[in-house]
């Protein structure tokens, strides 16, 4: 009996295989390519971040450096009150710097799920950016047409045992590798928040969405919007930029 059932399992497994392995590889490749297209090798950008709430709105201007899939530095340059506040992210670790108290604080793991600077992005959203590529299996579940281009709908499920925050993610990636949206689901596969891109145009030498909006799914008039003012993609960054000493250095 056990032999029979295990044989049945193998047959079942074989039967379920032909969900086109070709497509599965494609999905993984597509997500990785899209992600790399989005991040570039390295980039320097100036972004306006607007926190929008029902009765209130606030905009900060942030200068951002990114390198590869996992490292970045954000520094607030306006309003003047917050000028010089920075966040450095290397791998999975994060540090914050405040010029008023002139201290660098390393974020404890317990704070990772807290919101970053009061926005709808959590520290995890920033620190685990590359988790999408490393920790998830991707499947193309459909396509649609957007402005004459094919858009792939991708469902990303966490790999077994991967240290992930989300129970599922759904992505929309255009055939020219532009990310259109990323939707985050909890363990019960209920939607939690969604990030959407718009105003796709030439930016930093490639087609890129100028506006990104992160919104909690159950709150309609509460979101965080990122608008790129400047964006420049580079082959690499000087080695001293993504370092703790530079986090404290407000001149750059």
């Amino acid at each position, binding site marked *: 009996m056990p032999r029979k059932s295990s044989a049945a399992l193998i047959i079942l497994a074989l039967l379920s295989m032909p969900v086109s392995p070709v497509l599965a590889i494609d999905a993984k490749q597509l997500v990785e390519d899209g992600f790399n297209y989005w991040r570039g090798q390295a980039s320097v950008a100036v972004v306006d971040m607007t926190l929008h*709430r029902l009765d209130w709105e606030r905009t900060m201007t942030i200068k951002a450096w990114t390198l590869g899939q996992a490292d970045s530095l954000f520094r607030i340059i306006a309003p003047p009150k917050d000028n010089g506040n920075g966040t450095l992210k290397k791998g999975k670790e994060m540090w*914050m710097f405040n010029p008023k108290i002139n201290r660098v*604080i390393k974020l*404890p793991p317990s704070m990772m799920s807290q919101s970053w600077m*009061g926005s709808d992005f959590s520290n995890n959203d920033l620190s685990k950016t590359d988790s999408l590529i490393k920790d998830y299996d991707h499947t193309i579940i459909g396509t649609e047409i957007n402005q004459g281009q094919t858009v792939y709908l991708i469902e990303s499920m966490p790999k077994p045992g991967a240290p992930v925050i989300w129970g599922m993610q759904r992505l929309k990636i255009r055939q020219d590798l532009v990310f259109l949206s990323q939707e985050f689901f909890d363990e019960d596969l209920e939607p939690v928040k969604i990030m959407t891109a718009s105003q796709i145009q030439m930016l930093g030498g490639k087609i890129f969405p100028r506006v990104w909006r992160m919104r909690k799914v159950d709150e309609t008039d509460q979101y965080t919007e990122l608008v790129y003012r400047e964006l420049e993609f580079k082959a690499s960054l000087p080695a001293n930029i993504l370092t703790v000493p530079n986090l404290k250095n407000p001149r750059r």
Partner: protein
Amino acid sequence: MSIDVKMAWRNIWRNPRRTFLTAAAIAFASLLLIFMISFQFGSYETMINTSVKIQAGHLQIQAQGYQDKKEIRQVVPDPKKIGLILDNIPDVQAHTSRATAFALVSSRDRTYGVLVVGVDPVQESQVSTLANLIRTGEYLSSEDLDQALIGKLLAKNLNVKPGDELTILGQGRDGSIAAAIVQITGVYSSGLDNFDRSAIHIPLKTFQDVFAMQGAVHEVVVIGKSLSDVPAIKAAIVKQLDTSGQSKQLTALDWQELMPGLVEAIKLDLISGLIFYGILVLVVAFSILNTFLMAIFERTREFGVMMAIGTTPGRLTKLLLIESISLTAIGVGAGMLLGTALTFYFQVHGLDFAGSSELLSQFGITGRMYPKLTLLSLLIGPGLVMAITSLAALYPALKIRRLKPVEALTHN
């Protein structure tokens, strides 16, 4: 005294030892119930008072929705105006304002996310016991400096002592970055682990500067003259908020709404207590039932004789009921007397719970406990015993109505 009562009384004392034992069982049950219920009530009051005095206060005035979301933008914009309202409510003993925010707090080498509470050093000491809980170092000075009080467990986690500096990094009311360096002046220990692990207290003015509060606060905390004044104070506040047109933005919450966990814990304890008391009363009731049933079997011949000389069954039932009620009354009376004495003794001297379990210390019960004798705690137990035993006695009393005089006479 009617002949029935006289007969009943004599019948009771026909077997003094049995009567004494039965009455003693009833008395013991009553005594136990009075003491335990009083003790429960007393411990609830201790729990409530401790929690009220350490943290929540009897009442708080907050922005609508702050209790659920605790967002820094949900403020009481003008605490002075609320203060004026409170000053005119006679049952209010004291009040103070607090502001709270979640922030990163770091020592030299460690960082934790904790609640930063801004308190008015002078008024706070009239409302809460914070000033008396300082174990090392000192309470906040009345001038507004960059000082902080820290809970004992958090101090251990951050590895700091009075004199050390703490860095606070969070977000202000206007969304700007809030950052400050404060010096620890004192370490407090309340016995409530959660409170000692998760918060630091800084002067309200400092808080308002750092977190860009523009004079606003999050909670106006009110202490009434006693716990029983709370509903009246609440009604008065709600009315004042209504007439001044602030009831849309602000709300008054009493301690039950502020500490739903405590209310749940009390309910749970009360229910488990009630189950225990129910079982106790049931056991006593069965022993009474047994006693009366035995008496009837013994006295069947006697009842036969009485019926033969013309006693009606109704009168016999009445006789037996008077007997059982008197017996119960003796027991309950003695139990109430002894119970009151015992409870009162401990109400004055207290029961030592030093080194109590972790569970109790969560609710601030660390030292002596005092039962609290009230009319309610005095009457619930004995009343229950009285009712159940009377019910138990009803069965034998009705049973004798079915006796046939001739059969009863020949019964041995």
